[in-house]
């Protein structure tokens, strides 16, 4: 007589399929959850830091571009200052008897050297500064370039065309300064001796630098030769 194999209690108690479901103890579960949490936290932290660093880089790059672009167009305007091939003494634009003045520092009367006015008979060169009386339509011949301290931007106003100053940059410009230099490159307060105008612009990032905890700043300085001096 064949003796039937007696099943174990365990085998007898649970179906084969369910027998594979157990195996994690409470300790194992807690441990795996803890490790998982740590790994997830690390991953999230790394991702967050990477994103922040990327944003700071992008922000810094954008700020530098704003500063560089500003120096470029301001330099271009300064180079033409004083162009007056047909000897304009005074013009009718934007107001009667506007004296042709190649460069004037602080035309806005702020007491700061962060605004400048430029006259040039360039567009077209025709012996008129800005146009005829009542038709002041020649752009780029009477410009005021200024730093807007409130909005942290650089503004450009064509005194013959624009009703108000036009923001030319994002709100990232923390300072701008114009300095007169003589032919030897030495700072001077005498307008007559100006051979170069030094433009110094500082941009400040919107995002904070993670490492320093403060916004990064970038300053670009350029000495622009005033062509007709």
């Amino acid at each position, binding site marked *: 007589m064949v003796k039937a194999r007696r099943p174990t209690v365990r085998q007898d108690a649970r179906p084969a399929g369910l027998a594979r479901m157990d195996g994690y103890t409470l300790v194992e579960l807690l441990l795996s959850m803890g490790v998982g949490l740590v790994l997830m936290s690390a991953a999230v932290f790394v*991702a967050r830091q990477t994103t922040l660093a990327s944003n700071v*880089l992008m922000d810094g*790059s954008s700020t530098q571009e704003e500063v560089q672009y500003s120096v470029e167009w301001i330099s271009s305007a300064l180079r033409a200052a004083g162009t007056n*091939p047909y000897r304009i*003494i005074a013009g009718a634009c934007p107001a009667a008897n506007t004296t042709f003045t190649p460069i004037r520092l602080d035309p806005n009367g702020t007491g700061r050297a962060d605004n400048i006015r430029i006259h040039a008979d360039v567009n077209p*060169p*025709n*012996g008129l500064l800005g146009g005829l009386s009542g038709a002041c339509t020649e752009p780029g011949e009477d410009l005021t370039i200024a730093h807007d301290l409130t909005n942290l931007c650089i503004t450009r106003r064509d005194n013959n065309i624009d009703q108000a100053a036009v923001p030319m940059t994002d709100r990232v410009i923390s300072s701008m300064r114009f300095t007169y230099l003589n032919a030897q490159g030495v700072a001077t307060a005498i307008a007559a001796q100006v051979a170069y105008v030094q433009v110094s612009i500082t941009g400040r990032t919107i995002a904070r630098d993670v490492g320093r905890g403060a916004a990064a700043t970038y300053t670009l300085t350029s000495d622009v030769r005033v062509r007709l001096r």
Partner: protein
Amino acid sequence: MRAQLLRRDEHGFALIGVLLMLFLLAGLVASLTVSGQTETKISLNYEAEAKARAAAEAGINHATSLVIDKLATWQADGYASPSAAINALLKGPDGLTGTAARDADNGSLENLGADATQRIPRPGTRRQLTPDEQYEARVFDDDDPARGVTLSAADVSRISEDNQIFNDQNKQIVIRAIGYGPNNAVVTLETTVGFGVGDAAIIVNGDIDIQGNVQIQGAAGSVHANGDLDITGSPNIQGDATATGSYSTSGHPSVGGQTGGGFAAIAPPNVQASDHRAEADWVLTSAGTMTNSAGTLICNSASGGCAARGWTYSGGTWSVTGNGIQNGTYYVQGDVSITGNPGPATVSIISEGSIDIAGSPRFQASDPGLFLLANGDIEITGNLTQTGAEAQILVREQISVGGNPTLLGQIVVQNVPSVANLVHANRVDTFYGSLSLTYSGGLGGGSGAPAVTGWRQQ
């Protein structure tokens, strides 16, 4: 069965997590890569634009220098006027226009400059600076639409032009240079060179002191100092009183036009007696003889033979002490002293030395447009009266004018460092007393020397 499903769900968790992380990291990397590429392209564009600008600057400086040098010698080159010299440049080396072949060299500077290897090729051909930097340059009349400026009929009239692109009317010429950089970067610059600047009664390449009751009148009755201008007393200046340096006044001067410092400098002409040697009727030599323009001996002062013509010679100085002087333009190889009251006479004096006038002569210029010229100093302290057409007084060193002279024309002082001792050596040119100077404008081609009057980027 349900348990089996649960088990399959658990198996995908890690893969999904890893994939999510990979997607996140891939996104970041892609973002940084795109940003980096954009930055690189921006930098390359800046570099290309900077190279094109540098090439254009090189071109405009080169071309402007050549044009100024050429126009400065318009008289010596035999042109009747500055405009005639400009017209020659506009038509190019062949001097012709009207057909494609003739027009090919219009505005070309290809023949200017002493060094043939450094010349600017004709328009349409670029001068190579580096493998990726070139420029081309040419000239235009300022009312030529081809320069890229649209002027209305009123504009053309205002700038004294005539819409004839090979016929200059206002003594101004436009130079255009196009700079080429990599990646098709192009920068176009333009200068205007003209004779019309600084057509003032007194132009000094240095400091000026005006004192007393000096009267400067006329349509061009202005004063300009490339240095400082100091006015004291009660001078009356009908036009502008301007300085490139500082401007100061005291007393009660009257100035009808613009005043102040900081104005653009006016390039002075190069005053050189020998440039005007051919204009002389008579030559007073350093040997004490007078010859005519052909070199034929007229008289010898050693034997007193020149006294009849009003001149004596001693110690390097030719003098007029009496009341008579022979008409004509004199070229003097030495100093000149006039202490008598000669005239009325038609006389111009060109001196390799200095000219000292202390008497009361009454002259009108013999040489059209030129009254007095000195390589050294000029001092006028008497009652010199100039009549007739307006003419220039040109001084290489310094000038001092006082007393009660009446002058007609323009005084231009180059103000080179002092060698002659007639006028003070501190290089301040002085006008005092009751000088009366009247100038309507237009002498010396408008201002004597061509200069850059405008600059712009198109």
